[in-house]
């Protein structure tokens, strides 16, 4: 009986004091909601920073593999407005020492080269652009060919000698011929080979290691001077 009286009293007391507590609760609730929103914003920022650190760590690992090069990290800030062309816009320009022709890599290998530079930004032509031409070699057989971009996002290694055997899965790297890119930069692997006996050359389809649709950060090799061989070609009759 004592318990039931006490319970009734407590309920009555709570009922009387409820309006005041309600005000407090509403105030406390709004404070907590504010705090939750603040913490959520912090979580988003920290996640963003964590993914940036991961990307930078991966790029640093790639940079350590070729320590003779000097690198400048750049963030992708835009893509080509035309769906037919494969260019990216980077946030580093001539103010940071970026020059036309500089090769661009990431942790997975070759990405492309700088084609246009302004003071604070530059345009990067991806190796998958239909206008991109790179001298490349198959690492195992040392056979050389010319790597051209395809609109499908694949790469085609053309002018491969018929005398060599190209196997699916073999690694393709830059050859350094022509002076446009440093040698031995990883590009991708062979996914199919087209060889016909009546043709002069065989071709191979190369899958690039990088997923260019998700590129966020890249490294520009700033100490590589591309060799301009065009003046030499002008003298050829």
């Amino acid at each position, binding site marked *: 009986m004592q318990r039931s009286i006490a319970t009734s009293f407590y309920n009555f007391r709570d009922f009387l004091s409820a309006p005041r507590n309600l005000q407090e609760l509403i105030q406390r609730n709004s404070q907590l909601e504010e705090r939750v929103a603040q913490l959520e914003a912090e979580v988003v920022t920290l996640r963003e920073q964590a993914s940036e650190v991961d990307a930078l760590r991966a790029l640093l690992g790639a940079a350590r593999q070729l320590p003779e090069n000097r690198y400048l990290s750049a963030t992708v*800030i*835009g*893509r*080509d*407005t*035309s*769906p*037919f*062309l*494969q*260019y990216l*816009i980077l946030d580093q320009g001539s103010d940071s020492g970026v020059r036309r022709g500089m090769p661009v890599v990431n942790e997975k290998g070759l990405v492309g080269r700088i*084609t*246009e530079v302004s003071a604070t930004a530059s*345009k990067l*032509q991806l190796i998958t*652009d*239909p*206008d991109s031409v790179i001298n490349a070699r198959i690492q195992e057989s040392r056979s050389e060919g010319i790597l051209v971009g*395809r*609109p*499908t*996002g694949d790469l085609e290694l053309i002018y491969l000698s018929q005398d060599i055997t190209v196997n699916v899965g073999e690694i393709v790297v830059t050859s350094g011929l022509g002076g446009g890119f440093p040698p031995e930069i990883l590009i991708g692997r062979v996914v199919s080979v087209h060889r016909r006996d009546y043709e002069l050359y065989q071709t191979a389809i190369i899958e690039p290691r990088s997923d260019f*649709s998700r590129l966020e950060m890249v490294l520009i090799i700033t100490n590589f001077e591309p060799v301009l061989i065009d003046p030499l070609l002008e003298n050829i009759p």
Partner: protein
Amino acid sequence: MIWWIAVPLLAVVSLLQTTVFRQILLLDGSLDLLLLAVLCWSLLRPEEGMIWAVLAGCFSDIFSGGPFGITSIAYLLTSFCISQLHGRLRTHSPIVVMAIALFGTILSHLAVIVLLALFGRILEFEYVLPYVTLPTAFLNTLCAVPVYLLLHRLHGIGASILVEDKE
């Protein structure tokens, strides 16, 4: 009216195009908001459509690695064709706007493909049509009516300001 609306609007749209819309892909196509703006304005004010086409093309080419002027020519051609339809279209119903977006996109892409080929960049038509042009046309058709309504409102505001200025 052309300049004070067109230049800032197309500048912002081209920034959105290069930073946002080109990242959202359907197969290899993406929404072409610049082209949609040109097509819708060509419907609203055919006499200004071609100026919008040149401006939009220039803004697009700034952010593109292709030869400068290609997009302007493609947009100009498309806008010209749309402006020819102006007298023949009695209403700008949603169906008409969507049809214009669909055929305008295909026409614009065909023009770009031909122009790129003239500059030595041959594209594989059997890849480009199903993977780039048709998805882009689909997305443009889907977004044509909201873009048209937005520009129609802007056109109304611009016209009323001009009337006030004259008074």
